């Protein structure tokens, strides 16, 4: 019998490739969520700048950059566990914990400051690692494990800063929250930032550089390591990942460690920006919830497996850009929370369009 069947069966194979999809179109289709987010951002941020008296100016850019950095870092932090198919409800608390820690450590001689910064980032990563251990070896679901560990982080933060206070090196604060030129000026680099070659880049806000650094020097390479790949694999199908001999435990630990690291970085910058530590419980949960919203708006699936930290940054930008507009347009103050809520609801519901379009309802259950 077999012989009869070896005649050309190409038509059958056609089903393998969805009707005429070039690789580009494939990529686009696979990143539809992100594209939507970018469009939203362009819309909101464009409006904001168009109507802002000093729209598209450096000051405005600097101010915005300062405002988005912490949330963006937390969005990146949230992304990693989400890719795993979990959630990290402790990012806000870890941010706060590190924020309080920084208010003790990041001051004094340059050496001390450098050490303090390292310690803060280390602390964030360490806490994330502990989360990872609870999840991997305790086999407790991430969402609930981090709900609990978040409370613990909050407690520690309150021990460190029963009430707001502390100090961060003033120069550092100023240098980190302004344009590159001010940075150079503060630390007397490049002829106090007057160097000719330096001018073209002098206007760039430092926070944007920091963000890019974390994205391009930490996330992008990590994503291309085996461990990074494994995180996606686990989010997609943990059993299969294990069967394929992937380092499950390592990947999970790495994911939460990285989350802690990014969250810590967020806390550190918050400290630098505000030059204080403040164990503010509502603020912590605000950031946690916003980080989740950012991840979703960025098009990363809460089921894990698809998406990325950069997309989540865009999500964070969208969130911020929404509230920017309240400072321009005259929305009655007591209606602002309502409008904000409605826009958020609409933004996160964009994904629904897919559900409504799906012609085979089984596809909805992925």
């Amino acid at each position, binding site marked *: 019998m077999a012989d009869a069947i070896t005649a050309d069966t190409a038509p059958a194979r056609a089903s393998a490739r969805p009707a005429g999809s070039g690789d580009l179109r494939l990529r686009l289709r696979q990143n539809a969520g992100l594209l939507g987010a970018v469009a939203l951002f362009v819309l909101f941020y464009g409006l904001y700048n168009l109507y802002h008296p000093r729209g598209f100016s450096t000051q405005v850019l600097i101010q915005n950059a300062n405002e988005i950095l912490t949330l963006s870092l937390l969005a990146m932090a949230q992304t990693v566990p989400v890719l795993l198919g979990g*959630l990290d409800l402790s990012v806000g608390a870890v941010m706060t914990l590190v924020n309080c820690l920084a208010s003790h450590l990041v001051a004094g001689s340059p050496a001390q400051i450098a050490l303090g910064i390292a310690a803060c980032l280390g602390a964030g990563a360490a806490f994330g690692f502990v989360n990872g251990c*609870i999840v991997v*070896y*305790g*086999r*407790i*679901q991430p*969402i*609930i*494990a981090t*709900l*609990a*560990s*978040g*409370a*613990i982080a*909050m*407690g*520690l*933060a*309150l*021990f460190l800063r*029963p009430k707001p206070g502390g100090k961060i090196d003033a120069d550092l604060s100023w240098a980190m929250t302004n344009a590159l030129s001010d940075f150079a000026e503060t630390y007397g680099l490049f002829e106090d930032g007057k160097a000719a070659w330096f001018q073209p880049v002098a206007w760039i806000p430092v926070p944007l550089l920091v963000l890019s650094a974390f994205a391009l020097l930490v996330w992008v390479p990590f994503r291309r390591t085996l461990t990074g790949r494994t995180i996606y694999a686990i989010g997609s*199908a*943990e*059993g299969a*990942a*294990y*069967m394929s001999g992937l380092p499950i435990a390592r990947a999970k630990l790495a994911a939460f460690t990285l989350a802690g690291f990014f969250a810590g970085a967020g806390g550190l910058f918050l400290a630098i920006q505000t030059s204080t530590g403040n164990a503010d*419980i509502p603020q912590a949960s605000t950031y946690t*919830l916003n980080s*989740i*919203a950012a991840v*979703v708006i960025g098009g990363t699936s*809460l089921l894990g497996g698809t998406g990325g930290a950069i997309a989540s940054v865009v999500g964070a930008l969208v969130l911020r850009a929404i509230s920017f507009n309240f400072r321009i347009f005259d929305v009655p103050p*007591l*209606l*602002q*929370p*309502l*409008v*904000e*809520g*409605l826009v*958020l*609801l609409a933004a*996160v*519901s964009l*994904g*629904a369009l897919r*559900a*409504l379009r799906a012609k085979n*309802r*089984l596809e*909805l*259950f992925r």
Partner: protein
Amino acid sequence: MNALTVQIRPDTKPILIAAGFILVILGVGTIYTLATQGAATLLSPAYLIQQLQTGAFLGLVAAGMMLVILIGHIDLSVAWTLTAAAMTATAVGGPWAIPAGLGVGLAVGLLNGIGVAYLRVPSMIFTLGVNAVLRGLMVAQTGGFAPQTAATDAMRFIGAERVSGVPVALVVWVAVSLAIGVILTRTAFGRSLYAIGNREAAAYLSGIPTRRVTCLAFVLCSLFAALAGVMLAGYSTKAFQGMGDAYVLPAIAAVVIGGTHILGGRGRYMGTVVGVILIVLLNSVLSIMQMPEAGRQVIYGGVIIVMLLVYGRGERATS
């Protein structure tokens, strides 16, 4: 042996452990009071009754939350559902107060249900948005219309009164609990919840109306939250902004401590009841011991993790 009870037998262990831990809490608290007041006030019926009364509000919220968690979802909008229901009830006032409050619950539940079941937005995030919208509505309403906020007598009655020493709130909680117990074990709806929580696609292809069931679960969740709100307003004689904030995470914690699997599909209602009592007592004892906020947070988180570790580590993705 009935297939279902067989299926949930392992879920009984957490309940027993949690119950044991409740005794530990009471023990520790009593030692403290003995040391400071020289009296074991925590064991007095008066104190316990009062804890159950205040526990009833959390109990109702947790009950609804459990239904949603069972199908593998979560409802973060209960905080402002509760508040909105309470504020609407007092604003409407009169005989229609309570129905109005519950009406709010119904509406919110439908909205959540449609968003999650029909639009298939992840519940985590959709309910978050709905919560924000409700908050916005309440702010606008308070600012705009200065609504009446005094609880009606009927609300006072179900929230605060006692009949022959038994708080009405407690009675309501017990009644709701019995109802849910039966629903979960003895009705198609209850079974469908477990089925969906385990594998929605299979449930759907088995001809279970998954979307309607999901919707209904969210409606019930919001309804119970609304009921809790109306009763809470009765208890504190008035409705006020943010009165629900203290209920979301404790409700989730109670459900999970009660042994319900956070990803759905497994769990017994009894566990949620025990979890609620545990959380309420824990908070109360910490408050009595004048534990500083920092300590509270640490203990709170520590308890949850330790409990779950004691329950035994979850199984892996593959056998």
